[in-house]
């Protein structure tokens, strides 16, 4: 039982979804759309598990005074504050308007967005350090990598750009296209192979043991 039921579900739904792609019938497309809705709804329950994990890890840290435990208070504070602000009850004049409520939006705009954009902008620094470290003509492959990067980077230079742009454009449009196609085809095959292994029931490490 413990083994058979999940396996039966895998085979049933895997092949069903595969087959639905070929059937334009309305009933078939409805099933298809509904299955996608279902996944989103299940996701919410899984998120509850996730939030539970987040809370228990942090409570654990505080309880046993593990390293950096005071910061766990910050996490829990942020979590609960935001959950409270995200509540919705009490009609139109209540403070609690769910996603529309003042505090909820402002926590998003004033705390999430600045951190978010700054984290992202760290990339500019890391790109510099990675380039400095890695773009050295150590081997044939490294040299090719370096040449590709240099040609395309010169592309953005004013003045010199006029002469190098055709070459850079060509690299981006032609060898780039070839490489992407090769990778895409390989990935496509890998996806189909992995997908088939899943729906044939060969690959089931995601189901664990028992």
């Amino acid at each position, binding site marked *: 039982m*413990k083994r058979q039921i*999940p396996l039966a*579900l*895998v*085979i049933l*739904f895997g*092949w069903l*979804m*595969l087959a639905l*792609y070929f059937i334009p019938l309305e009933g078939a497309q409805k099933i298809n759309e*509904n*299955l996608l*809705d*279902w*996944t989103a*709804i*299940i996701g*919410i*329950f*899984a998120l509850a*598990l996730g939030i539970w994990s*987040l809370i228990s890890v942090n409570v654990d840290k505080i309880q046993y005074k593990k390293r950096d435990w005071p*910061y766990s208070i*910050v996490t*829990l504070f*942020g979590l609960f504050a935001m959950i409270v602000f*995200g509540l919705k009850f009490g009609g139109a004049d209540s403070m609690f308007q769910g996603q529309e409520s003042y505090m909820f939006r402002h926590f998003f705009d004033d705390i999430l967005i*600045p*951190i978010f*954009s700054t984290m992202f*902008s760290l990339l*500019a620094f890391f*790109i510099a350090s990675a*380039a400095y470290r890695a773009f050295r003509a150590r081997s044939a492959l490294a040299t*090719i*990598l370096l040449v*590709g*990067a*240099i040609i*395309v*980077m010169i592309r953005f230079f004013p003045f010199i750009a006029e002469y190098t742009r*055709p070459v850079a454009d*060509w*690299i981006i449009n*032609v*060898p*780039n296209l*070839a*490489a992407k*196609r*090769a*990778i895409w*085809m*390989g990935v*496509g095959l890998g*996806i189909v192979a992995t997908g*088939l292994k899943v*729906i044939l029931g060969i690959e089931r490490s995601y*189901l*664990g043991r028992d």
Partner: protein
Amino acid sequence: MNRKVLIPIASIIVFIGFVLLKLDWDGADRTHELWEALEVTAGGFLTLMIFSFLYKDNAFYKFAEHLYVGISAAYWMCVGFWSNLAQQAIPHLSQSLSEALGQPFLGYIWHYWIPVALGLILLTRLLPESMKIGWISKWTLAFIVASTAGLFITANLQANFIAQIASTMSLPLLPDWTGFGDFLSNFDLSYEGQFVKMFSNWVIIIGVISGLVYFFFSKEHTGWFGRVSRLGIWVLMVTFGAAFGYTVMGRVSLLVGRLTFLFRDWAGVIG
């Protein structure tokens, strides 16, 4: 007093100081002014806290990081709850519940119970292990993985695989060919020229094939096969280099955006 207490207190004082500096006392709407000052100052402080990570891991970064994790987790939970459960599932299941959530009831549809049931099954993982019921949560995992695997097989084949083969196949080896004489007399190195078109097609075809050869796993890459596979990895590497170079621009724009915020909105140095 030890550092662990001093630093947070000092930071709070500095923060309040900056808020006060930013505050426009003559403004008509004081509460609004205060909020604006708080917003911009918080944005500026958090930006600097994250940047401090570049020097080394430190208390300020840790603070911003932990705050960010907590708030974002709750944010996504609320968004997910409203958009998936409250607006999609519940309006098809219960009139009273959907009205309680302020959502219009969309008519009872029985099969919306299925994902709810599968979701509840998933929650059995939270029950103590001694109850030995957690294993049924695998039904849900099986459902999700299998249905998406089935879905993605075909979607991928269509767009990433067969479409790519078809477009590679439709490249003629000799585009616009009207004979050798014409080819030589109209020889042109520009992008639209026949030579470049032809050369490009050859590069794409050879590049795709050698790239695929590189991905062969069950044949030794020696001899001519090894040479073709070597060519394949070269093509990949040129591409990677080029893509890296191409990206630099976009990444720097983010930093420019951030610094513009710091200088323009927060510090007010530039207009």
